[in-house]
């Protein structure tokens, strides 16, 4: 049986990029959400959690409307990048971002909030500004949990189907990710291809979950 491995590589590439973006943006949003006296933070928290509970088709629809070629954003993007965003592999990254982002923000916020306040208080009283407190104290202490969440986000974004198919479509060799390829194989009666890909993605997901659990344990002698 000749299996086209392009969907696997595309999925890995899409998930990696989405996770990286989610990590950078997510840490920042999570940090904002841990600020006391930041009004409306619970509303923002709820808003960023929304993608976790809405049906993927609903999200796909929103994104299609927001990012489509007729939308202001879509036109702006097209004028800068020279090609539309929708129905490219980059749209698959956006789709994956909607899985990785909320997961990361939620977990990173919990991780940052679990850092005992005395450490941050000590750092501030020693003259450190917020930037130093975050990079040298809060984040290192929360790092294991953040890394575990990143792994989880990567595994989750590897498997998106609904948003991807609405936003990036199912173009073999261009936008066909692993989960879309599995659907395609089943539809096309290629059971052996579907079986192989299903096993591959299951094994990958299991490996990542195992890794996430291992990473989630604290590395310091003292319980945090």
């Amino acid at each position, binding site marked *: 049986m000749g299996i086209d491995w392009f969907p696997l590589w595309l999925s890995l590439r899409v998930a990696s990029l989405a996770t990286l973006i989610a990590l950078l943006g997510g840490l920042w949003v999570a940090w904002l959400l841990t600020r006391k006296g930041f009004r409306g933070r619970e509303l923002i928290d709820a808003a960023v959690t929304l993608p976790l509970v809405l049906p993927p088709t609903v999200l796909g629809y929103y994104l299609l409307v927001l990012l489509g070629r007729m939308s202001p954003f879509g036109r702006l993007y097209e004028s800068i990048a020279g090609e539309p965003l929708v129905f490219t592999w980059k749209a698959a990254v956006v789709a994956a971002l909607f899985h990785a982002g909320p997961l990361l923000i939620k977990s990173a916020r919990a991780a940052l909030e679990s850092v005992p306040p*005395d450490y941050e208080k000590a*750092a501030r*009283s020693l003259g450190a500004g917020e930037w130093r407190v975050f990079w040298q104290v809060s984040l290192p202490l929360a790092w294991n949990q953040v890394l575990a969440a990143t792994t989880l986000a990567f595994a989750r974004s590897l498997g998106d189907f609904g948003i991807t198919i609405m936003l990036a479509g199912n173009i073999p060799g261009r936008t066909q990710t692993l989960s879309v390829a599995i659907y395609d194989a089943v539809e096309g009666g290629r059971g052996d291809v579907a079986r192989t890909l299903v096993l591959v993605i299951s094994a990958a997901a299991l490996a990542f979950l195992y890794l996430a659990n291992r990473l989630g344990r604290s590395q310091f002698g003292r319980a945090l």
Partner: protein
Amino acid sequence: MIDARLRKAFPGGRGSTPFELNVELKSGAGVTVLFGPSGAGKSLTLDCIAGFVRPDEGRILVNDRLLFDAGAGVNLPPRQRRCGCVFPDDSLFPHMSLFENLWFAAARLPRRARRQKVGEMLERFHLENLGARRPYELSSGQRQRGSIARALLSQPALLLLDEPARGLDAALRMEFYALLREVRGEFGVPVVLVTHDLDEALELGESMHVLVAGKIAQSGAPREIFAAPASAAVARLMDCYNLLRAEIVAMDPTTNRSRLRIATADGTEFELIGPYFPGLLLGAKVTLAVREDEIEHGPELTGGVQLDLRRVARLSRGVRVELSGGIHVAVGEAPASGLSKQWNVRFRPQSLRVVKA
């Protein structure tokens, strides 16, 4: 030197009772103790001074530098307040070595001076061979010394210690107290020490503020407060006072004596001869504080009160008995023959102090 006046109210709500901190502190160059039971607002006061909690009203001056003034809208962030904080559980950063912890604090110095200063501090605090270790690889005494060294490296104008000896055993405590006295002399940094340990307060404090329920109940030298608590609440904290409800039934200024009728919670009643209390009237109801170790006892004493033995507590510093009326007497070493059921105790007039109820 601190000159602070602060008020912070917590309205209370679901599951929490309202609380108001309302204190005025003035302290000198030495060690100032904030003493009080847990929940009195001691740590909250430190948090207000260090800038972690914003008071509703008031102002805070440290060495004549304005850190906070609600009226003028001044509220320096913690990093500009130059308050070196040491928390109950040392709070050395667990992901850094001891050296890195100290390095973190000395950020104001240029690189070479920074390295030298950190090395000096490790040496000064007898930690010179432990710089590479993580906090969890250090003993509790070493961690505590490390966190003081770290706080001093940031060149603080004031050292705030929140129960720094918690979790240290008796021997380490003594060592730690000695170190703290040296530090105060050497570095010339005023220290505010929060504790609910009376021995620690007496050992280290040059002045003391007793906090009860968010308010300062008494201020002064620790020994003086210990010898003459101003109120029943303060006397209770000293852990060696009997508090008796009494009525003045006779007063005689010519002999400088008064007669007091004592009525205790369990219904025991007796009369005592007290000193003349200027300013109090016949029939006044007062609260008396009587130190446990100032009550005389023994069958041979004349003019004593007969009380029954209720309970015996054998403590490290001697035996303490509880007699009827809830009266505690410190009796030193317990006789080998056991303690008698009937006690004859005598209260010296001068040991009867009137305190605010």
